[in-house]
């Protein structure tokens, strides 16, 4: 039995009076691909943002690669270096070129030299298939290209885990595929991934585990084969029928 690389135990999160996560417990093994879905406001983003502590959980326990997330800033930083994150809105640094976006963190947080960092950066730009855009600014790229740059930027830190928060939701339909293709390739290479998405085609292709959330709780965890054909919970069934109907 493999030890989990991410471990959530009884995690609760409050925004003021509003409870966004109720007692979330969940494991992710090394190399596992998890797809999280659920209705809007169900706490999907909140959950994965707790994993790299963009949100602080109020109670419970989160352990990433053997490091427990506490107030300790050193722990938080080392977890963040192992965990890449891709946002819905890309969040590239607009004042830096694509290449500079990619080398910033490796140079500052990993203390790589510029030549080393640029070499890695070019490799990853190659992998997301936009090496020719290296000297452009983010605003000069299409949405799909920007999101691929954002993926490459995370990969440059050589993370063990990648988190994706609705990476294709802000994209025009014709650009969704180019981003999903990059993610599928990443999954094939054995990256541990947690992906929040409504792209069920993608989920069926790559997921080892499907997670369904509703009202701040994990309602169902199942492999895609059973998840899509015979979900246990009624709420999952309802959600799937809504989302698969279009």
């Amino acid at each position: 039995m493999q030890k989990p690389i991410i471990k959530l135990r009884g995690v609760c999160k409050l925004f003021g009076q509003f409870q966004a996560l109720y007692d979330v417990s969940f494991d992710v093994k090394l190399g596992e691909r998890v797809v999280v879905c659920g209705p809007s406001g169900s706490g999907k983003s909140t959950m994965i943002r707790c994993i790299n502590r963009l949100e602080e959980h109020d109670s419970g326990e989160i352990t990433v690669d053997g490091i427990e997330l506490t107030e300790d800033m050193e722990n938080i930083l080392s977890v963040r270096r192992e965990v890449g994150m891709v946002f819905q809105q890309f969040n590239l640094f607009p004042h830096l070129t694509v290449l500079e976006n990619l080398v910033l963190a490796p140079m500052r947080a990993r203390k790589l030299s510029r030549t080393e960092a640029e070499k890695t950066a070019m490799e990853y730009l190659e992998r997301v298939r936009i090496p020719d855009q290296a000297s452009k600014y983010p605003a000069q790229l299409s949405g799909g290209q920007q999101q691929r740059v954002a993926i490459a930027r995370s990969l440059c830190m050589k993370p063990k885990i990648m988190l994706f928060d609705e990476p294709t939701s802000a994209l025009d339909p014709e650009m969704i595929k180019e981003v999903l293709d990059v993610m599928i390739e990443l999954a094939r290479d054995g990256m541990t991934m947690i992906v929040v998405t409504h792209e069920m085609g993608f989920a069926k292709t790559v997921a080892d585990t499907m997670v369904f959330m509703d009202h701040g709780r994990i309602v169902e965890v199942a492999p895609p084969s059973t998840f899509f054909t015979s979900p246990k919970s009624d709420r999952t069934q309802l959600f799937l029928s809504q989302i698969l109907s279009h």
Partner: protein
Amino acid sequence: MQRKKTKLNWIDALVVLSIAIFVIVIVRRVESVLNYTWDWSKIVPFFIYVDRETGEWTKNLMIEGLLMTMRLAVYGIVASAIIGVVMGLCRISSNLFLRMVARSYVELVRNTPPLVFIFIFYFFLSTQLMPVLGIEELARSDSPTVQWLIRILCGDPVLFSNFISGLVCLSIFEGAYITEIVRAGVQSIPRGQWEAGKAVGLSGFDVMRSVILPQAVNRIAPPLANQFITLIKDSSIVSLISIQELTFMAVEVGVSTSRIFEIWILTAAMYFVICYACVLFFNWLERRAARARR
């Protein structure tokens, strides 16, 4: 989009003409009603004159005042910018105490009239702080290099501690406004930028330095330039605590020559030249920065 007019038409000319006529009428009325004879020659020696003994051109009160104002402007801009950046960062710090300190500072300055603030602060500074800091001793130092340095950088050593108090007052006063400019600029950067920076493993300091501040600078620059111009104009306030800058000298010369109109018109012109030169300089900087960003 509306096209900008590039040529003046006859209506514009008419407006200019009527303003000119109005000015001439006012000048005439000053002469007739106040029985005032314009005499510009009398104030010229207060700017520059030929020394009887050496036969050289020597600067007089007004030019001394102008230099003092320029010193106040340059040092004031540097000092208030430093105060503003430090306090601005405190203002958004995660440390409650720092936030409280910065907030109190800003509100205290913003909600008292500049004059009142400067009086209170000046009497506190000059009576309490200056002796403690040893500013007086420094000014009275025997070392010729120290005397020379003070004279070059800050004018007459006798007035050195006075000058420092005035400068500190002005900087603290303007620093509060710059604090707010810095705070607003930093906070205008979307939260996603912080999150992306942290998510790739940068420390809070590195996110600030490499992601937030470089973007904030572009947004801070225009209001900051504006505040610097304001600082130059506000520097006239310290004339009231006897800092011998342009306005102070203008009052003196006005009283002793009773050439009130001439001296104040020239004083206004001198402020205008300094400020407008700064405006042009800041515009040039901004254009250059914009080109560098291409």
